């Protein structure tokens, strides 16, 4: 019974950056451990804003976000960091830290005042680097890496926080096909093998449909559909979401058809 409990739950979320221009108009959202959820929708539909509300960065005007049955804004910044981690769209470091040091920065909320890392922290960081296959360039700095490698390093850093929930904002949108696939495979493994609730904002319908357990389609601050990929990938639903004609292409080795905008 416990495993089906929603770890992250948001009800009737409303948010506006400026009065009178709502970005979220009553969004319901839930996420479970062990599931990869992808949030999709056209630009300006409120995906990133939803993500920011979920991570407690923005205070919604209405509704509430519950993390483990407690309001996300009630957690201290440090407490929250031990439960929830975030991976940005573009990996960046203003300082010339190596990948290994960046991953260790993820231990901030688990360490003391000076953030001195001990054996356990190093073990956690190492496991995170093994999982993300970043150990081979652990001694290099971010600007010596390709975009794909840098994004893997950022996922390793988030993983070092040992979170229960991982939020990713378009982690693969600027990567090549091979790296996109690698990132989605990694997110799926984080959900299925590491039993995290993984939530990813995405623009790639096909990759999301192929790897996610659940898809959420947004448009103009509302959720249009929320369900398993095979239920969501339908011509009428996608046409309404993106405002384009959609062709579905059946594939023999995939339960979900591919989509192509006409």
């Amino acid at each position: 019974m416990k495993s089906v409990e929603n770890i992250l739950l948001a009800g009737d979320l409303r948010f506006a950056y400026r009065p009178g221009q709502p970005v979220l108009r009553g969004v319901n959202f839930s996420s479970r451990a062990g599931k990869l959820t992808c949030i999709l929708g056209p630009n300006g539909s409120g995906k990133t804003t939803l993500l920011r509300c979920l991570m407690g960065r923005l205070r919604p005007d209405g509704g509430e976000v519950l993390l483990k049955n407690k309001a996300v804004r009630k957690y201290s910044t440090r407490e929250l960091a031990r439960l929830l981690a975030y991976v940005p769209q573009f990996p960046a470091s203003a300082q010339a830290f190596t990948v290994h040091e960046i991953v260790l920065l993820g231990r901030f909320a688990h360490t003391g005042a000076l953030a001195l890392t001990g054996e356990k922290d190093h073990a956690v960081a190492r496991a995170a680097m093994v999982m993300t296959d970043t150990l081979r360039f652990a001694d290099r700095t971010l600007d010596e890496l390709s975009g794909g490698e840098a994004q893997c390093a950022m996922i390793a850093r988030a993983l070092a926080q040992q979170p229960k929930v991982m939020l990713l904002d378009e982690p693969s949108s600027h990567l090549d096909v091979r790296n996109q696939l690698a990132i989605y495979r990694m997110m799926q493994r984080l959900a299925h093998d590491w039993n995290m609730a993984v939530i990813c904002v995405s623009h790639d319908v096909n990759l999301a449909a192929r790897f996610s357990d659940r898809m959420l389609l947004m448009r103009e601050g509302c959720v249009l559909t929320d369900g398993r990929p095979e239920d969501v990938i339908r011509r009428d639903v996608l046409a309404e979401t993106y405002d384009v004609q959609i062709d579905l292409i059946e594939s023999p080795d995939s339960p979900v058809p591919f989509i192509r905008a006409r």
Partner: protein
Amino acid sequence: MTDSPAIPARHLTGRRLVILLAILAGAAIAVALACSLLGEYRLMWSTWQARMLRLTAAAIVGAALASAGVALQGLLRNPLAEPFVLGISSGAGVGVLLGFAAAGWVALPGWATTPLLALIGALLTCLLVYSIAQRHGRLDPFVLLLSGVIVNAFNGAIMLGIFLLVPPRTISSFTMWAMGGISENIAIAETGFMLTCGGAVLAGWAMLLLRGAAFNTLGLGDEVALSTGVSVHRLRMETFVIVAMMTAAAVALAGPIGFVGLIVPHICRLIVGPDHRKLAIVGGFAGAMFLMIADTLCRLAGSWLRIGEVPVGIVTALSGGPFFIFLLRRRFREVSP
């Protein structure tokens, strides 16, 4: 390469921190002793004492400015940020001059008035520069530097105005202070004054060290830092107050000495890498040693050239100006190739 970086050499552990502190403290004391013995052939006990006092003041000022520079560069992710460039020093300077001018008719004792007014000036300047440069909680690095320039000019005008108001006979000590000099006769002879400023710098230094890891995380961007457990907004406010306090102490002791907070952190970064915990420690000690040596050279040059005192602020400005331009040009190259 091997598969596992066990604990890399530049990684900070508790033991390495203690060793680092011990080595640097020893080096700073050695530099102070060496500097104190340079000069006249026959050294009197009282001369040596006066020199040690002056060197202590130089060390306090150097440590304050360099570690404040480390903190501002980390906080603002801007390699050009430092108390002088951002106008914080000149804000503290206005406060100090007001303290000098008002010395007769303020109820507080002298050792408290000047640092307090300097602190108020520095805090007001921080607030002003920050509110000019920030939009929706984001800081544009170039707007920040420009607002520093403008606030500097503004504070300079106020200082000149105060010059006009004071009696002519105090002007020479004013001028000396405004050039950034550590002299043996004025303020530092007062124990209470030295203790106030030294205590403020020591406390601020420790507080910056404790925020080093947060500065490291901030390099990954505000949003990532927040999700890693850093209260970004609070960190900004706290750091500005700490930096204002340390700058105020430094300016009250020695006038607006520029560019120490720029040169020293950059050289330290080349040596110890980007970790702000190490930079806070190494930068503080290096700043102390840098200013002790620079001040001693100024003292020696002054007596050799028979022109009396050479303010150390002139030396740091002459060397810091070109350094700033060099960093600025490199930064421009990064932004627009």
